């Protein structure tokens, strides 16, 4: 500061007739703003306000002072002989002058040619999300967030502009310039149980985030080359700012509850229907006394959902210290998050600390670092529903659904419904403990080579240590005779990145250049150690006493590494700020691909035309800005495991005799993978055309984009090859997938004055991904537990990705369809039917309706299916497309109001036109066993011949339930009130007395109301998270909670 003053003094001395002018620059709350530039118009002379917002400058009487500060409207004030000029800067309504962070640099929003969405800090934390990916939901156009599981800490599936790849379509996350590994923890799998997957993103404290930019089109993503195809999420954390030291405290507490329960039968209906189901199957009815009790509504009902769910709590505390002077800026933050989930005994605890530093060594060299450490403790129970659990049978939530309503909470076993164990035992029996610690940090140095040219080097390191523990108690039948089972999985991920960039900025008259040229090296290492021990004397020591186990399975140690070498560059050129050109290119070399295919080149070009800067445009009323954008480019995807191109031998052991009457395990080696010498990148070619429109002095801004993406050389892991090759699958580049869509974003300051303001932001997105070419006409996908032939979905050439494939229901067979019932009175029909409910009949001549599942179901009341190939019987050929997991469109609308000291906002998002396969209904509809949906009471009976629900049948295992048909497909469209927040900021007069800069209290509710026809817990579902080949399956996963939070923010 001193130096500047000396320089200024010298400069000022040169001026004659100058007078000294001083004053204070404040914001609307009358607080001094430090760092405001005060400049004499049309000169290089200027000063910066001090910590208190005060400035002193020498200027002549006819000068004009220009006051400018980021985020505020620039003011020009003529001196006019005044010696004291105080200014209040008002916040700018102009979004366009924001600086937008793009890969390896920044660009003014008005100069942007690519398609980039920005999300600000306040929008990220408002929802109270544990993790930043969840916070993206509904916030930006073209970004679809699916929170498949309510497990605290589990990741959300984020898709940017539809689906690019069959290998997951998750974007690349870059935090403060560091691409981070976002692979969810591999679950501990123990027979049909498996742990929930915790996402590394849940380790990042959302309160540390200053902004998130989402790079969408090729012009924006090509700079990330081989990893840009799925879009890039750039996360920038807060840094210290010039001015006095600040302390910022956010503290909040909340409660969480299960928003909705699934309607199930009560005990009385349960037994009445089971009795009927057994008789219908030709089996003896239930105990007559029990039936009589049920018919007279005498039986107690237990709802197991009440037992496994609880009211959860959250507690989130942040404190950060920030400040700085012109040579050193700092931000120190710490976070404590403690939450108890809505499923009993599940929790999530995070402690994190951050230190962000920026320092100027001298006028040429500046250095800085972003250092972050986080530790997570999370206890989980068996709530997962991934494909390891047959129809989620061993998930305690599924158990709570299928367990008989008549079974007592204390019962260990009830033949008629509990099947081996109760939900309570499932809850108590499987313990998953996760302890994850992560360090992520970088150190960077920047050297100003000359005016406009600088060199920056950045070293970053990510280290994640995961300790997963599992213990299955002896109370579970699976553990029987295993006597307790302990498994551990300790893994470590190391990512090291070195990035070197040259930045060059040059303005020559009307030509403006902004260029970056760089190179980076990244190494990724993964190792893990798994142990499994069983047979313990008791459950007291859990996994801590492996040495006392009777069975010691071999420990498994695994390791992999991969490397990425890159060269990249970008030139932004603008002419008169009117014509904009961006050229981007990156060369990536990845170790994951075959010898001759290591390197890929990803170029992009974008053009922008600020048409509103043309003279002819100045006269158009209301339109303050109009920019047309056009881009074309390539980006890639390399998201496969390492070593897929190599011929591999794997090792294992195999039992043989030991020669002494016993057995031993011999080591074996065997070919485990066929080499693919042609393995290479997936390449996405994206075309984008769009415009940015500013209306009414840019108080309304509209962004629109249309895009078309072709993903070529699709990486298909596990593509089927002829078995006689000795392998059944191979990782190959196959086919072409095409996504078309539009993104529409609106930001509007509808009303903006001192006492009342109303800001609305909204977005609307539509995208559709189709398979254009593939190695085969179709590939089975979706969910296949062995009962669904092939799978619930298929990848079909010419169809959307994520179509459900199965039988089409065609009503219920009725009396009139059968010869034997012709010409009978209603009563005679009923009597004939009851004479033998499991008899079969003969269809009338010329019957043309649907067919039941087999010839032994030719009787009234059976579910009928469309006979697509018209051969008179139901066969595999009668299956077709019965639903689409991709939505038609999705949207988000946020309204914020400020009324004096009150602020209020509500946020709505929605997904329209998506279908869901309700996998849990496989179990909740068929009457072979267990609890059923309440809607079963509407079944077909002779007296009430339903045309919607078939008759109940205890022998119906396999049908209708396991004929995968559109009965299991539901419309998953929803509109949700995601968040409502009401805040009150104490008037300045009071906070001043308390010596506080700010005191705000707020109450916030999330996931408050969902309007949907979907019958499951919540319509954001996915069986296996981000697997694009299993979209839209609900298997009664951990439901999303409704949350209410009360918080306070203090600044001083």
């Amino acid at each position, binding site marked *: 500061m001193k130096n500047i003053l000396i320089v200024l003094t010298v400069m000022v001395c040169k001026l004659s007739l100058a007078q000294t002018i001083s004053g204070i620059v404040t914001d609307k709350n009358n607080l001094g703003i430090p760092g405001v530039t005060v400049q004499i118009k049309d000169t290089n002379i200027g000063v910066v306000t001090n910590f208190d917002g005060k400035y002193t400058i020498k200027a002549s009487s006819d000068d004009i002072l220009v006051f400018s500060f980021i985020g505020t409207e620039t003011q020009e004030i003529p001196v006019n002989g005044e010696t004291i000029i105080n200014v209040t800067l008002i916040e700018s309504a102009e979004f366009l002058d924001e600086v937008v962070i793009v890969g390896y640099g920044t660009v003014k929003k008005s100069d942007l040619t690519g398609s980039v969405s920005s999300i600000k800090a306040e929008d990220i934390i408002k929802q109270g999300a544990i993790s930043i990916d969840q916070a993206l939901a509904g916030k930006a156009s073209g970004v679809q967030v699916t929170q498949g599981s309510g497990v605290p800490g589990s990741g959300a599936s984020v898709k940017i502009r539809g689906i690019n790849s069959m290998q997951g379509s998750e974007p690349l996350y870059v935090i403060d310039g560091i691409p981070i590994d976002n692979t969810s923890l591999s679950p501990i799998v123990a027979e049909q149980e498996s742990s929930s997957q915790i996402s590394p993103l849940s380790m990042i404290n959302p309160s540390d985030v200053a902004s998130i930019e989402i790079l969408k089109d090729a012009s924006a993503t090509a700079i990330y080359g081989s990893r840009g195809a799925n879009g890039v999420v750039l996360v920038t954390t807060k840094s210290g700012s010039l001015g006095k030291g600040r302390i910022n405290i956010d503290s909040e507490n909340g409660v969480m509850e299960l928003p909705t329960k699934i309607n199930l039968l009560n005990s009385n209906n349960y037994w009445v229907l089971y009795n009927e189901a057994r008789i219908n199957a030709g089996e003896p009815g239930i105990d007559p006394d029990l039936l009589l009790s049920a018919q007279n509504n005498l039986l107690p009902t237990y709802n197991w959902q009440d037992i496994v769910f609880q009211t959860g709590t959250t507690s989130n505390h942040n404190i950060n210290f920030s400040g700085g002077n012109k040579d050193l800026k700092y931000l120190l933050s710490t976070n404590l998050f403690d939450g108890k989930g809505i499923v009993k005994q599940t929790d999530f605890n995070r402690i994190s600390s951050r230190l962000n530093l920026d320092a100027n060594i001298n006028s040429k060299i500046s250095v800085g670092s972003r250092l972050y450490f986080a530790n997570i403790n999370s206890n989980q129970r068996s709530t997962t529903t991934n494909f390891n659990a047959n129809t989620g049978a061993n998930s305690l939530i599924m158990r709570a659904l299928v367990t008989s309503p008549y079974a007592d909470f204390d019962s260990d*076993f009830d*033949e008629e419904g509990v*099947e081996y164990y109760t939900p309570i035992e499932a809850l108590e029996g499987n313990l998953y403990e996760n302890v994850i610690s992560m360090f992520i940090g970088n150190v960077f140095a920047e050297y100003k*080579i*000359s005016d406009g*040219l600088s*060199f920056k080097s950045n070293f970053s390191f990510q280290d994640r240590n995961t300790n997963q523990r599992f213990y299955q108690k002896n109370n579970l*039948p*699976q553990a*029987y*005779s*295993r006597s307790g089972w302990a498994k551990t999985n300790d893994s470590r991920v190391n990512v090291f990145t070195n990035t*070197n960039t040259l930045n060059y900025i040059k303005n020559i008259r009307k030509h403006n250049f902004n260029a970056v040229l760089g190179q980076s090296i990244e190494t990724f290492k993964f190792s893990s150690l798994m142990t499994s021990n*069983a*047979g313990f004397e008791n459950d007291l020591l859990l996994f801590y006493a492996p040495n006392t186990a*009777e069975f010691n*399975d071999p420990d498994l*140690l695994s390791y*992999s590494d*991969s490397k990425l*070498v890159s*060269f990249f560059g970008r030139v932004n050129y603008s002419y008169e700020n009117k014509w904009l050109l961006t050229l981007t290119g990156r060369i990536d*070399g990845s*170790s994951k691909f075959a*010898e001759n295919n*290591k390197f890929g080149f990803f170029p992009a070009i974008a053009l922008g035309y600020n048409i509103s800067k043309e003279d002819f445009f100045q006269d158009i009323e209301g339109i303050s800005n109009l920019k047309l954008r056009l881009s074309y480019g390539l980006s890639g995807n390399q998201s496969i495991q390492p070593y897929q191109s*190599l*011929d*591999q*031998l794997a*090792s*294992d052991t*195999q039992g*043989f005799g030991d020669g002494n*009457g016993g*057995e*031993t*395990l011999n*080591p*074996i080696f*065997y*070919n485990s993978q*066929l080499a*693919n010498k042609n393995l290479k990148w997936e390449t996405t070619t994206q075309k984008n055309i769009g415009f940015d429109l500013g209306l009414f002095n840019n108080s309304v801004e509209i962004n629109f984009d249309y895009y078309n993406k072709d993903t070529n050389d699709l990486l298909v892991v596990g593509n089927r090859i*002829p*078995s*006689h*090759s*000795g*392998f*059944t699958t191979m990782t190959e580049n196959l086919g072409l997938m095409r996504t078309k869509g539009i993104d529409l974003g609106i930001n509007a300051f509808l009303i903006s004055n001192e006492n009342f303001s109303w800001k609305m932001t909204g977005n609307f997105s539509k995208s559709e991904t189709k398979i254009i070419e593939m190695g*085969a*006409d179709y590939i089975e996908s979706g969910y296949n537990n062995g009962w669904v*032939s*092939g799978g619930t979905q298929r990848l079909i050439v010419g169809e959307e990705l994520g179509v459900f494939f199965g039988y089409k229901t065609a009503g219920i067979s009725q009396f009139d369809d059968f010869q034997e019932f012709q010409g009978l009175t209603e009563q005679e029909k009923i009597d004939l039917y009851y004479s033998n409910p499991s008899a079969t009949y003969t269809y009338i001549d010329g019957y043309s309706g649907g067919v039941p599942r087999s010839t032994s179901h030719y009787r009234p009341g059976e579910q009928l299916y469309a006979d697509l190939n018209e051969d008179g019987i139901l*066969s*595999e050929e009668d299956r077709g497309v019965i639903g689409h997991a991709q939505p038609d469109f999705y949207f988000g609308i946020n309204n914020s109001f400020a009324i004096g000291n009150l602020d209020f906002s509500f946020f709505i998002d929605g997904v329209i036109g998506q279908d869901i396969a309700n996998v849990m209904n496989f179990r909740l509809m068929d009457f072979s*066993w267990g609890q059923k949906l309440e809607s079963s009471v509407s079944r077909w009976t002779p007296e009430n011949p339903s045309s919607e629900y078939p008759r109940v049948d205890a*022998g119906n295992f*396999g049908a209708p339930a396991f004929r995968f048909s559109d009965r299991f497909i539901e419309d998953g469209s929803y509109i949700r009130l995601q968040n409502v927040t009401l805040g009150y900021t104490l008037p300045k007069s009071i906070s001043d007395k308390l010596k506080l800069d700010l005191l705000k209290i707020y109450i916030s509710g999330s996931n408050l109301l969902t309007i949907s026809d979907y019958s499951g817990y919540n319509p954001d579902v996915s069986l296996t998270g981000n697997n694009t080949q299993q979209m839209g399956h609900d298997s009664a996963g951990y439901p999303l909670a409704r949350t209410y939070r009360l918080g306070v923010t203090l600044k001083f």
Partner: protein
Amino acid sequence: MNINSTFLPKNLKFIILILLTSISSCEDFLEEVPPTFISTSNFYTTQSDARTACDGVYEMLHDGGWNSTYGRWWPAIDLGTDDVVSKVSRTNFNDWFSHTINPSHPWFESWGQYSNFWIGISRANSVIENVSQMPNSVFETIEAKNSIIGEARALRALYYFHLVRTYGDVPLIDKPITSKDNFAKPRVDVNVIYDEIIIPDLQFAETNCSEGLSDGHITKWNSKVILADVYLTRAGTRRTSQGEFVQGNADNWLLAKNKAAEIISDSPHQLIENPVINGANIIPACGVAWSEGHPFSVESMLELSSVNVQLHGSILSRECGPFPHGVNYWGAGSNKPFLNIGYNLNVIQMRFPGNPPAVGLYIPTPDLYASYEEGDERRDWNLMTKYITNDGSIYLSQPTFRKYVDIGYYLGNENTSFSNTNNNFILYRYADALLIYAEAANEVAAATFGDSAYDAVNEIRNRAGLQDLPSGLSQDQFREAVWNERRHEFAGECKRRFDLIRTNRLATETLNIKKTWTSAEGSVNNYQNVNTLFTGNVPWPDHEWLMPIPQSEIDLNAENGWTQNNGY
């Protein structure tokens, strides 16, 4: 836009130079050198490498997982015959009983009961080719090298033998396939596979593999018994992939007889003659080779080891154990079915003490039970209907193939678990040699009382507590007697379907199957413990002599001219 070099400062050129020079070293940097696995090119250098690779060929027979050949699903090969049934219609195998088997069934597709053989053959091909190319000097002896090659060849033959009997014509692959360019292969006639692979491979193995008893590895003797079985099979009837009925070449009878005779006269194998008495549990002599604690017995010729370690055990205890629903089980229709006959147990307790889940996929039929002669020890061994726990309690169980079951697991013993039982599966026993000999000898020349064919059958019968066969049987009667002996001796050993095919009895023997268990057979009341689709009134269709090629394989090989087996 003219950015010339003077436009840029000198330092920049220097930095660009650094960037460019770093490119040249990238290629090495990006090379993948994975530490956790090896590839073919750097393997096969020592005898130990050859041995571990050869041992890897065995894995597809039984890998302890669910989908290897003798892991979980292969016993379905006999479903629908007169020996093996599945739980009441709630099963994955409905199609087996209604005879509507389709090529998309998971048995062929996701459970790998076609692909497993090819994985095994591929591993064998890799061993045969690579070990052959290794210098003799790295082996202790040339015999050691040839023995390894012999094992791999015998296993290749065994996998092919399974393939041709199950699926008919298959491609002939005797070299490792290393790239996609070699995928295109036509299906070739079964006879070509026998003549060019199976028989030469086994002949090589019987010459080059080791003497002595088997510890799970291929020996000279188990090569011979497989070869004898091959000859026996080729002597019998079959249907081709095109649906033609083929009567085998009778020359094979003599080959089968002679091969079996070599084993009987020269091998160290023999029948176990003494029972094992373990408190209340008595394992008759006929069951000892299968029982826990007697792995790789003198009787066992080719045995697959299951070790009580995760991923190395047998899951068949679970698969064939009783399905835990009371209805239709061994007469249990209500909660307390046994009060009236003195069993103070309910249905639940009737299962195992700890209620472990079992699924009842492969269970014996009443027909099999009733076919045993009075006094045949093998009946109650093969078909367990009750068991006695360590405290002396008697538990009824749904009839279960005892040889699949780890009884310790039923009894709740320590060190047992449902997915990793210690139960070995035996593919060939000395009994195979005896019965192949008897059957083949009787075809070469009608057996006469007191000759070696009679002796072979009687050795088996006497061991089972039965008298000798009556004298004076006609050739037809003797043949029938051997067939019966095979059924009773090998119950549940995945041989029934193939026996019925080669003797052209598949349709007749499966037409009228006894479906009802009676109280005379130890059941509480008469009931039908059969898959409800298993009505017996759907005759075994000719095309189901062969299984269909999995649909995905037909699709993947459409360009190679593959067509589905006739009738599917």
